[in-house]
């Protein structure tokens, strides 16, 4: 546990014109850690995820993956280094079948497979997220949770070193939520390193080792879930002007 952090975010800043969405944020994630990135709406969480995955370039500061600077790489290189993600608004590849959606994650990413290997692996992953045997279903006719599952399977297909889940649990009904939480717990038990942006506090409490709290682009707290949630800044950030 005292090895170098898998991910370190160092004084990262992102400005859109005059608006500073992420303001000199630092934090680290260790191997096999599951951390929650929380904060009120508009606090810069999704921007932070985009900065890590390479969808956006930081204005200043660096992001390192296992010591290597990734913040100057294009998104596809970062993906090849082993960062996989899901999206806040689920993004399925509509003209591909379910299994092809999963294979898409396996072919070009961190661990590459092609042909029959990729196919077999994808079947295993579909099974794992609970879509076993539904590889040929047209994705358009899938329910919302199934699409989310599919997206998770795609992210897992490259066997990533770091998995970014951007509000993966949002929009699920209570029973689906339970399934979703179980699925993430499973992943954690496999030893995956995960950062999850989440509004569902129950999930954060039951899943996360540690929590980073952001408000208006600034990191206001970082520590174990229990400690963090009782800090007065956090409470006022949530209960103050904006409500979660």
């Amino acid at each position, binding site marked *: 546990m005292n090895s170098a952090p898998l991910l370190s975010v160092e004084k990262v800043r992102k400005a859109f014109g005059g608006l500073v969405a992420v303001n000199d944020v630092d934090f680290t994630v260790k191997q096999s850690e599951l951390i929650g990135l929380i904060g009120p709406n508009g606090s810069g969480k999704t921007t932070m995820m985009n900065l890590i*995955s*390479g*969808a956006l370039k930081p204005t200043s500061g660096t992001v390192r993956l296992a010591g290597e600077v990734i913040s100057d790489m*294009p*998104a*596809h*290189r970062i*993906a*090849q280094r082993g960062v*996989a*993600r899901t*999206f806040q608004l689920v*993004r399925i*590849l*509509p*003209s*591909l079948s379910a299994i*092809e959606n999963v*294979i*898409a*994650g396996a*072919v*070009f*990413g*961190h661990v590459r497979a*092609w*042909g*029959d290997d990729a196919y077999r692996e994808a079947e295993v992953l579909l099974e794992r997220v609970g879509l076993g045997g539904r590889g*040929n*279903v*047209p994705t358009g*006719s899938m329910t919302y949770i199934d699409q989310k599952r599919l997206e998770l399977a*795609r992210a897992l297909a*490259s066997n990533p070193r770091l998995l970014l889940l951007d509000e993966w649990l949002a929009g699920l009904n209570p029973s689906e939520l339970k399934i979703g939480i179980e699925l993430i717990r499973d992943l954690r038990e496999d030893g995956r390193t995960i950062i999850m942006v989440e509004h569902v506090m129950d999930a954060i409490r039951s899943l996360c080792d540690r929590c980073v709290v952001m408000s208006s682009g600034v990191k206001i707290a970082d520590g174990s879930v229990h400690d963090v949630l009782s800090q007065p800044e956090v409470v006022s950030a949530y209960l103050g002007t904006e409500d979660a």
Partner: protein
Amino acid sequence: MSLMNEKEQRIAAIALMLFGAAAMIPFADDGYYLSLCVNIVMYAVLCTAWTLFSGPTHYISLATAAFFGIGTYSVGLGIDTLPFPLLVAIAAVASGVLAGLVGVATLRLSGVYFVIFTLGLAELVRQVVTWLQVKFLGSVGLYVFTDMTEKHIFWMLLALAAVVYITGWLVNRSRLGFALRIIGNDETVARHVGIDVARAKVILFMISGAFIGITGAILAPRFAYVEPPSAFNPVISFQVVIMALLGGTGRLWAPLLGVIPFTILFDRISASFPNHTSLLIGVAFMAIVYFLPRGVMGLIDDFRARHAKSRHAAAGVPEAAE
């Protein structure tokens, strides 16, 4: 994965027969119908090569004339000194390289910007070629006198068409092809699963550009006289886009469905109504846009879907299993 599955073998056999049959055309007619067929095969190659890139990426390129002209010029400039096959190879490389440069430069552009950019590019290349020729060769016309006749050109184009189709098929089953399908669906996802979107597009654009260049090279002897306005004729760019879109861009062979009927239709119009060609082509065109919104391929797909639906309904199979 085996080399070809059963369905693919069947398609390959049919394709082989069709190509064989097409290769016999010059023996049946050596006149007008052959010339019409040369035009058809020419546009089939151009449109298919165009669709290789534009189908999956949804980028509409109007640079066809630039690549075509470069191919024609490669032959025009070298016909007196180098053997024809070598010139064709040079044409492929030259237009491929140009496509590569354009591709690298235009990665940030999308949608209509790319459309206009490629249009501007074709014009720019034409202007620069003209200027260079005037400055350094002292003339703009080049003569390409060979012993090749329509039938030789037809056979060469036909062979090229076969190569284009095989390339297209190989690309489709390769990682590159898969990457392109993902890009066509969602570029953001493509990037985040580790696809170098820019590289994939550039490679494909180069392949497409090279084929168009070869087509230009093969056709150079047909026209005997090469000059910038005919070699870099922007009408070619537009016609290719239109025929390909009318056919459909979803499948490798879909553009053919645009090329064949529309070459013949336009030919019928210009044969029967020489004084109203523009007007009637315009009317035909708008009619097609309104009544065949998704191209001929769309029509076929609709028909198939309906057919399949009724079959499923009859058999009580849920639609989802399709």
